[in-house]
């Protein structure tokens, strides 16, 4: 072939070889480009929220309102059942319920992080990381509408936490990291096995009653020692402890961090191994 000009330097080279899949490299590349495209994930999350509440007057503030009603109603009921003073129980319950809702919402939506993006996955070349991030951002936006309620309850009951309350921020960060890892792994597992989402929702319901959300851990007496094994409890406690109980125990932090590392490791391993199959699963 006659060549009159220097060929331009190749900007892109896509190679895929079934005998040498380079899975690790491609998974890392996916994560890197996915995070670099965080603005796309944020824009999609914003659209999700907007479309979910389209035409509604209160919009996402329905979340704030329904959470507020739930906190007050359950607070009145359970403070009587547990015969605890309202001004002591309600701040505890407010943090518990709001953080629990956040956790359970992330897990539920994480199951659909990839299946709900089916249309995009099969038509556009996009890092899968974007879909998991979209799920995280969507839930962060939802959290922004319910977390401030905690402040309202604290002000109303004059509950002033000490400086240890700042530790709730790393607690929230742990929740965020888990949200991403879970959206990725649950998204994949649920795309492949369609029976997983109903199982997850059953587990969540069970976990709500089995974990100290409505009740205080002290009520367990001796058995309390087992609680750090419950990841739902420890991830809740790293936010709740600093805000209402003067800090969380060391083993709680250890367990929460340990669980986060585990979920990240598992999620990464899955992603490396099965990333190439996702387009066939959704």
């Amino acid at each position, binding site marked *: 072939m006659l060549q009159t000009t220097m060929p331009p330097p190749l*900007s892109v080279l*896509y190679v895929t070889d*079934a005998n040498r899949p380079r899975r690790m490299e491609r998974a890392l590349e996916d994560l890197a480009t996915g995070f670099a495209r965080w603005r796309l994930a944020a824009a999609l999350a914003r659209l999700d929220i907007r479309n979910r509440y389209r035409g509604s007057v209160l919009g996402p503030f329905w979340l704030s309102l329904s959470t507020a009603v739930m906190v007050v109603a359950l607070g009145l009921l359970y403070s009587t059942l547990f015969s605890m003073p309202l001004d002591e129980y309600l701040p505890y319950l407010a943090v518990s319920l709001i953080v629990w809702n956040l956790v359970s919402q992330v897990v539920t939506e994480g199951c659909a992080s990839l299946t709900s993006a089916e249309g995009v996955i099969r038509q556009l070349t996009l890092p899968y990381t974007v879909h998991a991030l979209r799920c995280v951002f969507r839930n962060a936006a939802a959290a922004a509408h319910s977390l401030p309620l905690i402040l309202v309850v604290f002000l109303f009951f004059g509950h002033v936490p000490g400086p240890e309350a700042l530790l709730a921020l790393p607690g929230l960060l742990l929740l965020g990291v888990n949200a991403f890892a879970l959206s990725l792994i649950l998204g994949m597992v649920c795309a492949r096995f369609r029976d997983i989402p109903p199982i997850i929702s059953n587990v969540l319901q069970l976990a709500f009653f089995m974990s100290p959300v409505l009740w205080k851990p002290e009520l367990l007496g001796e058995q309390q020692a087992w609680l750090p094994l419950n990841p739902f409890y420890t991830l809740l406690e790293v936010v709740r402890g600093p805000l209402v109980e003067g800090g969380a125990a060391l083993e709680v932090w250890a367990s929460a961090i340990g669980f986060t590392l585990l979920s990240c490791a598992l999620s990464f391993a899955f992603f490396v191994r099965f990333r190439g199959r996702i387009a066939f699963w959704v």
Partner: protein
Amino acid sequence: MPHIRAEGLAVEFPLYHVGARSLKKRLLARTPLRLRQDESNRVVVAALRDLSFVINRGERVALVGGNGAGKTTLLRTLAGIYEPVAGRLEVAGSVGSLIDPAAGMDQVSTGRENIMLRALFRGMDDAEALEMAEEIGQFSGLGEFLDVPVRSYSAGMQVRLSFAMATVITPEVLLMDEWLLAGDADFMQRAQERLGRLVEGADIMVLATHNTKVAREWCTRAIRLEAGRIVADGPVEEVVVDSPPLAPLGVAG
């Protein structure tokens, strides 16, 4: 230099939700050619089988073949959406794929919002996005409709917006499905011109099409797929000629 090289490329679709054993057996018995059971006892459809070809700079290739021959699957594999189960694929050059115009479009958002969203999908920065919005606005001729939700557009307006959004790219390797060549006559005239420029600008084009006229007009080479295999590959006049003419529908004219 932009090129595409495939060696023994194979893509298989697992049929995951075919659970029952008897159904599996029946499926396998009926279509022995393309359905088979893989090592882990899954029923898989062999969508592409043992494809080898090289496409060099300057070639414009038509993928022809009947429904289910594997044309769109091959396009998606070239775009990096499906990973092959066997063989090797090398695509050098920036890829622009126009496979489904509506993918990633949000029906509730306005035209302009959709343009900005598309810019994000392509990983553009703000300045590039604004420039793209300007150009799309001009070409689509949607005017004030750009600020109206897309769901209230007529079908023709939707096509114009998708087309405009899809074609403001300057890829080295252009992957295209034939949807682009459908539209109302008035618009098609402008569309032809724009497509022409896009095709000229690209170093390589791969176009999946049923339409022999389109293939002859736009392409230099044709690859005929049948049941996931290449059955003919050569200059467009040779490969496309032996396609059976469309059966008349019983309407004169």
